């Protein structure tokens, strides 16, 4: 007591302790919010990764997953969970929560927040916005363009415009390159997809004689960032794709089916 009196020790103000606790809770809340954004963006990136057509772009599912995993968001989510854990543990009674409870609170909070953000369409905004600003993060939009805008590998993504002849249309890819697209080898379903979707993916092959001529063998829906797909939608697209690559798939004119298109289909089926 003497030392307390001699040194004129006095209790620190209550606000000092309250504000410290509030700071830790706020930082935890911030971590959950950033985690929510990361989850919403991950959900969007995963949904639109094009896994329904992975055989068209990759050797197998593993190489596809390695390419499309949203590493940035996974890293951010892991970081926010750790940061949230640290801050929650440093709140006044945070030590009482077990590791499981803290993880459930942090990850569960991010899942709830992520579901809400994803539901209101913020997942695509975050993914695209961050993709445009952070050089080492390839957004799912850019990734799809990189994967599908590759005529050498027999893939194009873009939109069809005016018919040029009965068997050719003008096609503009996402880089703005204009192509003469031969459609004679397409089935009615492919032609329907070509007419129905504003943006389409084209599987085929490039003409050896001309740089801007592409022979279409299969038409698939393009990148649809504004659509939220249910699992059944995606499964539907997957089965439509598999049906489209089967050799017996109906074509407009069997005589027009080129050997090259057969090879394209066989190559996909063999994966």
């Amino acid at each position, binding site marked *: *007591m003497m*030392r307390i009196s001699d040194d004129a020790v006095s209790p620190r103000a209550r606000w000092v302790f309250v504000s410290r606790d509030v700071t830790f809770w706020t930082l935890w809340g911030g971590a959950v919010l950033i985690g929510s954004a990361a989850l919403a963006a991950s959900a969007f990136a995963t949904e639109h990764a094009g896994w329904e057509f992975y055989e068209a772009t990759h050797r197998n599912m593993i190489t596809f997953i390695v390419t499309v995993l949203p590493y940035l968001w996974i890293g951010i989510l892991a970081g926010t969970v750790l940061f949230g854990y640290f801050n929650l543990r440093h709140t006044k009674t945070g030590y009482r929560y077990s*590791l499981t409870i803290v993880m459930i609170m942090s990850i569960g909070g991010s899942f709830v927040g992520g579901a809400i953000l994803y539901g209101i369409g913020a997942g695509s905004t975050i993914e695209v916005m961050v993709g445009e600003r952070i050089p080492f993060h390839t957004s799912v939009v850019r990734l799809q363009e990189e994967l599908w805008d590759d005529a050498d590998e027999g893939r194009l993504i873009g939109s069809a415009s005016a018919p040029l002849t009965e068997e050719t249309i003008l096609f503009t890819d996402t880089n703005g390159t204009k192509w003469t697209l031969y459609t004679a080898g397409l089935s009615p379903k492919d032609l329907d997809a070509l007419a129905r979707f504003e943006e389409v993916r084209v599987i085929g092959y490039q003409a050896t004689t001309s740089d801007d001529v592409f022979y279409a063998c299969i038409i698939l829906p393009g990148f649809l960032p504004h659509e939220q797909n249910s699992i059944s939608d995606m499964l539907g697209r997957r089965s439509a794709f598999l049906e489209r690559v089967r050799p017996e798939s109906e074509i407009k004119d069997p005589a027009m089916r080129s050997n090259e298109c057969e090879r394209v289909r066989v190559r996909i089926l063999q994966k």
Partner: protein
Amino acid sequence: MPVGGIKTDEELVEMARNQREFFGLLIERYEAKLARYVRRLGVRDEEDVADVLQEIFIKAYRNLNEFDTALSFSSWMYRIAHNEAINSFRKKRVRPEGHLVSDSEDILTFVASTEKGSEILFDAALDAAVVGRAVSHLDNKYRDVVILRFFEHKEYDEISDILKIPIGSVATLLHRAKGRLRKELKEHPAYE
């Protein structure tokens, strides 16, 4: 409820916030208990014990507004005492070695404890000094919970508040501490 004018710790804290003198009553209540506790934690020299105690009470008084009834005042004081004892070891760069050998009565209570896992100690009929030494050899994390549980007679929730760890971790640490003690004591000649 206060009976016959005796105030609870929490009431004294409230009064001490406005009038410093009431803190003296809390010091009187806790001085002996905390001195024994810091000795058990390994502060050996009596001068050091006095220094650590002084720091504990100054820190407690300075942070009096941090205390609220989310935990007991006793747990709060023990927490400060635990932290100050560790600070003292850090300053002196020594490894804490508790004075448990002298706590013969508590050690025998520990030995005779009906808690699961203590039978082996009881059956071995080891003397208090042997058990005390074995406890002293435990890692700090195990020794801290053993001291609080068996020497300070704290409940699991109190230990959780003092050491700032989840109650589940208290149970786990105690269980492992007993296992390690059992292993060490089995190797003692008296157990044969």
